[in-house]
């Protein structure tokens, strides 16, 4: 019987091979991964984009064929194509089959919207369900996280707030997001055989507190701002402690994200202008990072600021692109001479002063 996806042991070998930069041309690796093919993270992202474009084009083709309920056959076609890629070609975490699978299920949701005209709670629930099913089948952390986000939308639509259409606050949705984040943070202590399950928890730990914050970011009431600030501060501290104890990166990133949210909620603590706050907060963060870099240059209880190993080439590229992107745009000066008499006091021939 053909395996629907790699076994936990095969998946562990796939991850180990990627970390040690070993290809399937190594006999031991080829034997252990059982013929499953996985590209690098960068290639996976590129394949996902290509797969998403292919999914959109497939939908267009079925629409242009004027088939009745074109979304249904196009969705089925995409699911079949994705399953063929996984079962026949043994693709795992390759991006393209993930895009096709998600596209196929979301086509089904679109069909429901088309038939019922409903765009409310049921649709949000169906989107959450579709993404959860896709995430479970494909062991995809992004889809599982998006499913949780979609579920928060469903909770908001089920309540009083109704995505800003109702009078209430989005507290239930926000609480749901923070709860999922907290559960994921503490569930990281459990041992999972599959690296994918750890990755799912990592994504939830980083993303859900931010989503919980964003649900209430538009509320200017002091109580809400104090509450969200406090929750973010507590999450940041918990994530920092757990991240250092477990030697895990995701909780540390979650800590930084929560601190950013906290900084935003403290924006009105002083009467300084926005530019002054940005410069001060930025300088404080810079000094903190420089201090930590210096302090951790020699490992302290195993924690160091030195880069171990080669590092991710994708992150290096991102850094270079980011450095170039920060370059200030040139200030375009206007024309220095205006033939019609100018706009400054002494001229006035054009009547513009």
């Amino acid at each position, binding site marked *: 019987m053909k395996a629907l996806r790699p076994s936990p042991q095969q998946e562990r070998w796939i991850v180990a091979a990627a970390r040690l930069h070993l290809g399937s041309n190594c006999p031991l690796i080829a034997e252990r991964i059982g013929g499953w093919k996985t590209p690098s993270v960068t290639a996976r992202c590129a394949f996902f984009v290509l797969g998403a474009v292919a999914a959109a084009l497939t939908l267009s083709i079925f629409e242009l064929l004027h088939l009745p309920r074109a979304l249904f056959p196009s969705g089925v076609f995409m699911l079949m194509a994705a399953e063929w890629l996984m079962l026949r070609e043994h693709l795992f975490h390759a991006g393209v089959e993930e895009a096709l699978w998600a596209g196929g299920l979301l086509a089904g949701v679109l069909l429901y919207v088309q038939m019922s005209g409903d765009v409310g709670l049921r649709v949000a629930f169906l989107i959450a369900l579709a993404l959860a099913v896709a995430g479970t089948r494909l062991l995809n952390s992004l889809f599982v996280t998006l499913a949780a986000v979609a579920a928060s939308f469903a909770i908001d639509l089920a309540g009083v707030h109704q995505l800003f259409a109702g009078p209430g606050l989005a507290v239930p949705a926000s609480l749901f997001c923070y709860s999922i984040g907290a559960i994921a943070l503490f569930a990281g202590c459990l041992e999972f055989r599959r690296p994918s399950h750890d990755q799912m928890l990592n994504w939830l730990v980083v993303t859900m507190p931010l989503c919980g914050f964003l649900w209430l970011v538009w509320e200017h009431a002091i109580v809400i701002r104090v509450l969200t600030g406090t929750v973010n501060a507590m999450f940041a501290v918990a994530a920092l402690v757990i991240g250092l104890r477990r030697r895990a990166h995701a909780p540390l*990133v979650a800590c930084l994200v929560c601190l950013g949210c906290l900084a935003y909620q403290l924006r009105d603590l002083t009467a300084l202008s926005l530019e002054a706050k940005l410069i001060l907060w930025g300088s404080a963060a810079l000094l903190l990072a420089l201090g930590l870099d210096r302090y951790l240059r020699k490992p302290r209880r195993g924690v160091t600021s030195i880069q171990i190993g080669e590092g991710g080439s994708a992150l290096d590229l991102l850094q270079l692109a980011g450095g170039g992107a920060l370059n200030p745009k040139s200030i375009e000066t206007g024309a220095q001479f205006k033939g019609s008499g100018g706009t400054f006091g002494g001229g006035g021939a054009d009547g513009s002063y």
Partner: protein
Amino acid sequence: MGEGPPIETEPTFTVRECRRDLIRALYPERRAGAGRYNSAMNSLESECLELKAAGVVDEATASRVMALQRGSIFSVFEELRFILYAAVAAITTGVGLLLKENMDRIGPAMLSGMLLLAALGCYVTAVRRLIHGKTRSIGGDYVLLLGALIASADLGYAESQFHWLGPQWQRHLLILAAFHAAAAYGFNARLLLSVSLACLAAWFGSEGQIATLLDAVGPRSHVGTQAIICAATILAWRAAHQGLRGPAQFEAVFEHFAANIGFWGAMTLCISPRSRLMGLAILIALALACAVKALRGKEEMFAIYASAYTSFTLCCLEAQVIGYSLAAALLQLATVVSGALLLWNFHERLRALPA
């Protein structure tokens, strides 16, 4: 034997310490207590041990990976990089807003002088380290980047106020490109080189924004040509850099910038009706060059550039020429599928190449 010895306050991460932990790790019943920090999390130690026993990886590599898996050594380099980037972004945004909001309130000379002092302060720290022969850390790199960005903002602001260059005010971007390039070579800093190349691209008018692409059929259809010339200039610079035996780590920066700007230019030319054929020819030439580069240098990113940019451009072209129809959609799907197959083919060939 119980727990491993505690990590010293200022340890050196030696092979001896790793071997001591490894020997303990060979005994599964003692593994949980052998200095592990993340005993409950997914660890690939057993796989690393098997690879080491089979001779696939050497001892140093296995030791390093296993120490990382066990948590004996934990690097927060990426987290620090994230904080540093966010800090620099916040400061430069604040500086930009400061200039915009206070152009009329604070005298230009005072404001420009303050920025100049701030930029000099950032450069001084790097100069001191250079004089003392010390290596710059990631923090030092970002302080240098901050100095470069403040200097860019300062010169742009001063030019807008004092009009030193008159009608040729855009030449200040060329001056900045030269200044940052000199600093990049002086300090051996790749981040400064990326800022220099960004200034050069801006001088050529290649902002790389979607709006530029959409304006390709309008008055800005020359943007594509300028981008191609910019990419060619960067490649010429790279050739001179290689000839003069500059730092090897700069070559990748030149190549990635040239590839992206070149493809952007080719895309713009393809979308503009007047230069479509020329754009197509340049696109194919660039795709072939990137494919060869990918296979020769074992750099997957160039294979991604070749297939993704080409697929996207051809899809846009097909939509423009044929219009929204079944034939166009089928052709576009075939293009995307071909692009994905080509990329997969590259990926498999790159994997099969010896290390």
